């Protein structure tokens, strides 16, 4: 019997009950969320269980929703079951003022650089990360560029013609 989204959902609810919520299937990929304290428990369960063998971390990223007060930063994990070829998306929401999330580096070594990138661009502090510092931006940068509160353009340019950019 192959592993279907319904079966995964059943197993998760059986194990975690009310903690996992917001199940949806955009484009056929099961997506759910859990409170941030449970992120390692859920990841470990998905890894260790012999029926749901989600042992490959495809992606770890964050999204900034400036309008959801109290749940602004979402850390998104994409996991893949290589044996049955099933993918799953797991989201953890956190407040922008205390963006602490437990690190997944103990479980997946690929999470190391991906968490550094997420820290660099969104400011999510991964608790327990061995080397959390900026990876792609300049070390002296004091803001987190991908948060929607900062401008995309380089502010040191003085020669830009506002008319041409639709701002004049």
């Amino acid at each position, binding site marked *: 019997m192959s592993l279907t989204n319904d079966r995964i959902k059943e197993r998760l609810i059986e194990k975690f009950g009310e903690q996992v919520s917001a199940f949806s299937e955009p484009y056929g990929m099961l997506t759910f969320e859990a409170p941030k304290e449970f992120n390692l428990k859920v990841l470990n369960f998905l890894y260790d269980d012999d029926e749901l063998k989600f042992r490959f971390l495809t992606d770890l990223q964050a999204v900034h929703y400036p309008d959801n007060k109290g749940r602004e930063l979402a850390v998104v994990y994409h996991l893949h079951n290589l044996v049955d070829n099933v993918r799953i998306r797991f989201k953890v929401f956190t407040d922008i003022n205390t963006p602490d999330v437990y690190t997944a580096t103990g479980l997946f070594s690929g999470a190391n650089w991906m968490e550094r990138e997420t820290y660099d661009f969104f400011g999510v502090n991964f608790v327990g990360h061995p080397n959390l510092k900026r990876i*792609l*931006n*300049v070390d002296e*940068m004091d803001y987190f*560029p991908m948060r929607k509160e*900062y401008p*995309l*353009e*380089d502010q*040191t*340019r003085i020669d*830009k013609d506002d008319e041409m950019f639709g701002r004049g």
Partner: protein
Amino acid sequence: MGRPVSYNVNVKPLEKDISIAGMPDGHQGEGFFATKLNDVVGLARKNSIWPLPFATSCCGIEFMATMGSHYDLARFGSERVGFSPRQCDLLMVMGTIAKKMGPVVKQVYLQMAEPRWVIAVGACASSGGIFDTYSVLQGIDQVVPVDVYVPGCPPRPEAIIDGVMRIQDLIGKESLRRRNGDRYKQLLESYGIQ
């Protein structure tokens, strides 16, 4: 098929089998030729530039095309491209330079020996190009002094060759004492280079 070719359709006969660089002005007689040292040194330097390609992105591919046999840069004396700054004259920065890469370009520039020239190929190296963002250096002239800018995104190989030819003009006319003069020192000071 597209339109028929309308340019360059008449075969041009080869004028000379070998082309030699022009002779500088001077006074010549039986067995001697007197000219200015500046001219001779300039002639030698400009026809044997050793470029250092600092190719980062798409302009690097155009440079590869320029060095290929169709648009040959080796005709102009730049046969030997070196990747060691200690041995090269011309730093060709081709491609987008991120702010994190800026100190690296500066370091490579510092390792070059005088006389050295810098050519910024492409829109990104000249001014940040279309990437007007927090991570891209808006022009390498923020970290190193540049002699020639080649605009284009990417510039055609003919444009890169034109840039190199202008560098050759600069080299040919450069005074031998320029690098020791005050103005040059001030230029380097403004970049923080001793």
